């Protein structure tokens, strides 16, 4: 899953055609964004599109938000190179949605309005909890953003034949600026339209390629698997993670982070607020589950198909390495035109996900930190939207800078990091505040800050960062933590810290539990002012 620094090989396909298709997508989506801009005037519109989307629209947008570059390029590549071990990503990313559907989506929609912190601070001391939730929202979004922007850099090398580091940096900056245009003009409504269009294109593109691969082998899946296995994509687990006891444990650790991370991803949680009721939130998740599940089934065929038709070795040797499995397969199947279409879809994927992340991070800053922590919930008239826009610009600039710095880094590593942070810092507090009466402010703060600090510390001292062959710093070694994904340790510890903080604090908030439980399960007052408390 590494994007190599070496961009020496020649590009495939026609860069001009790739670019033309991408520009076409941008113009087409900008049309919707500008239309959406007419109503993008207040905080509710900016953050949630006025909560006016239907469950189906939102479900498609969620799948557009969720199926990031890591899902499309990353999983297909992981399967093409490692075979069965890459399949774990698909399964973990999908099963995770059950946690979101059954435990989180509806209750969250009923108790909050704009951000994850709305729910966490419902019955706690509001300001410290909002501050903590905003910090972890920013941290998760930042790592997720880095992964997407780094993915953009790698893709460019392959598709537009831009080999120099400077040229790629310029393209990353262009992607960042475009994303900002979407966010600033269209707000959540515009971003949602972009995600819907992108999801449809992505799923249609992947379906077309899958059909093509199947047709080539006479619709014999067994043959595709066999050919893929001969070319290097193992049918047996363990090619990537079965080497030593430590790597096996790493596999387990990754699987925990994947399955528990989704329901703690702030940009996914925020999407539940773009629909008017919990019923529509449920419908959104159901649509998302069907689409995401379908897509991951396709990636299985695409991964083995890429191994069979292109060859694992050839994929690894190409610029972009594992991440270029899907584009290379497209070129193998449909030549220059299909490659151009699939690359434009991949770019659109990155653009849409980055826009969604930026909205979430800027909303969390403006709504939680500025309006509630600094101004005690009563910001000056119209100021919150202005702050949100400025925050979006700052986040955009940071994302561009980070993306340029991370260009060449391992996408899957960065995304799994975001999942581990979300599963450690966010999920325990979300579940505790929804289901545990005794939970209180100290428990909340210990779990969020503790989870954040433990996860990031373990990652910094893991072989993913230093001391290994695939580390970010190959020549130095300060690692002492053996696993490259910290989930196995950090998630249980965060749950434990939430419990410990709660039990050592004398604060009892049970009286507010009645209101929160009734609201969360019935939706009473949810479509009005859910937050005056």
């Amino acid at each position, binding site marked *: 899953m590494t994007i190599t620094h070496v961009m020496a090989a020649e590009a495939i396909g026609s860069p001009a055609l790739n670019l033309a298709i991408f520009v076409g997508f941008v113009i087409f989506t900008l049309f919707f964004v500008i239309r959406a801009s007419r109503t993008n005037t*207040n*905080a*509710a519109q900016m953050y949630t599109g006025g909560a006016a989307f239907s469950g189906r629209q939102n479900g498609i947008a969620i799948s557009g938000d969720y199926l990031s570059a890591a899902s499309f390029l990353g999983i297909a590549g992981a399967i093409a190179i490692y075979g*069965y*071990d890459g*399949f*774990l990503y*698909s*399964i*973990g990313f*999908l*099963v995770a*949605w*059950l946690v979101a*559907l*059954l*435990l989180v989506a509806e209750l969250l929609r009923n108790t909050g309005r704009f951000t994850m912190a709305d729910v966490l601070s419902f019955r706690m001391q509001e300001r410290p909890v909002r501050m903590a939730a905003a910090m972890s929202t920013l941290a998760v979004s930042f790592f997720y953003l880095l992964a997407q922007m780094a993915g953009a850099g790698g893709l460019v090398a392959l598709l537009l034949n831009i080999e120099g580091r400077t040229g790629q940096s310029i393209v990353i900056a262009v992607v960042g600026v475009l994303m900002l245009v979407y966010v600033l003009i269209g707000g959540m409504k515009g971003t949602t339209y972009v995600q819907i269009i992108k999801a449809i294109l992505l799923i249609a593109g992947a379906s077309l390629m899958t059909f093509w691969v199947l047709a080539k082998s006479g619709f014999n*899946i*067994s*043959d595709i*698997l*066999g050919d893929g296995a001969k070319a290097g994509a193992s*049918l*047996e*687990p*363990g090619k990537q*993670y079965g080497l030593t006891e430590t790597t*096996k*444990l790493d*596999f*387990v650790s990754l*699987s925990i982070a994947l399955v528990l991370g989704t329901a703690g991803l702030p940009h996914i949680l925020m999407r539940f607020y773009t629909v008017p009721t919990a*019923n529509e939130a*449920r419908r959104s998740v*159901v649509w998302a*589950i*069907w689409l995401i*599940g379908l897509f*991951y089934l396709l990636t299985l065929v695409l991964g083995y198909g890429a191994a069979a038709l292109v060859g694992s070795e050839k994929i690894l040797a190409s610029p972009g390495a594992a991440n270029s499995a899907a584009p290379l397969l497209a070129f193998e199947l449909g030549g220059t035109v299909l490659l151009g279409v699939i690359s434009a879809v991949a770019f659109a994927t990155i653009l849409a996900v980055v826009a969604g992340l930026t909205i979430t991070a800027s909303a969390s800053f403006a709504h939680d930190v500025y*309006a509630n922590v600094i101004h005690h919930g009563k*910001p000056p*008239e*119209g100021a919150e*939207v202005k702050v949100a826009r400025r925050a979006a610009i700052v986040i955009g600039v940071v994302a561009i800078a980070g993306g340029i710095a991370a260009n060449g880094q391992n996408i899957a590593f960065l995304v799994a990091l975001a999942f581990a942070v979300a599963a450690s810092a966010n999920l325990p507090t979300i579940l505790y505040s929804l*289901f545990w009466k005794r939970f209180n402010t100290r428990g909340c703060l210990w779990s969020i800050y503790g989870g954040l600090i433990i996860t990031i510390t373990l990652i910094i001292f893991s072989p993913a960062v230093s001391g290994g062959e695939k580390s970010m710093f190959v020549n130095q070694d300060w690692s002492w933590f053996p696993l490259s994904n910290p989930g196995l340790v950090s998630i249980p510890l965060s749950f434990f810290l939430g419990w410990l903080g709660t039990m050592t604090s004398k604060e009892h908030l049970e*009286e*507010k539990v*009645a*209101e929160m*439980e*009734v*609201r969360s*399960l*019935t*939706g*009473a*007052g949810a479509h*009005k002012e859910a937050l*005056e*408390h």
Partner: protein
Amino acid sequence: MTRPPDPHQTTEANVDADIAARRAAFVQVHESPEFLELRSRYRRFVFPVTGGALAFYFSYVLLAAYAPGFMGEKVVGNITVGLIFGLLQFVMVFGITALYIRYAQRVLDPMSTKIRDELEAGGLR
């Protein structure tokens, strides 16, 4: 953000009284048999189902990590045990989703709608 002017929010005292009254209304509903029934029916479904789904998921993970030979065994053609196990995870996710929808629409929604309507008819904003 802008909020519409609210006649109830003229004085601080008024606001406090409002909040106290509303909290009392919530506590009353919270203790009602209808609500307890709703909560228990919701939790009796989602807790065991989530637990079971995660158990099935982790059994797949552990088998893949520690019994690769078994997972790599071929059943039909090149279709392995591991592949079937993986695809069963998809089936499980789709199946539980469908079951939950049916359960929520038949059992949970009528109960929660009734409680919400009563609360909102009682003047809850």
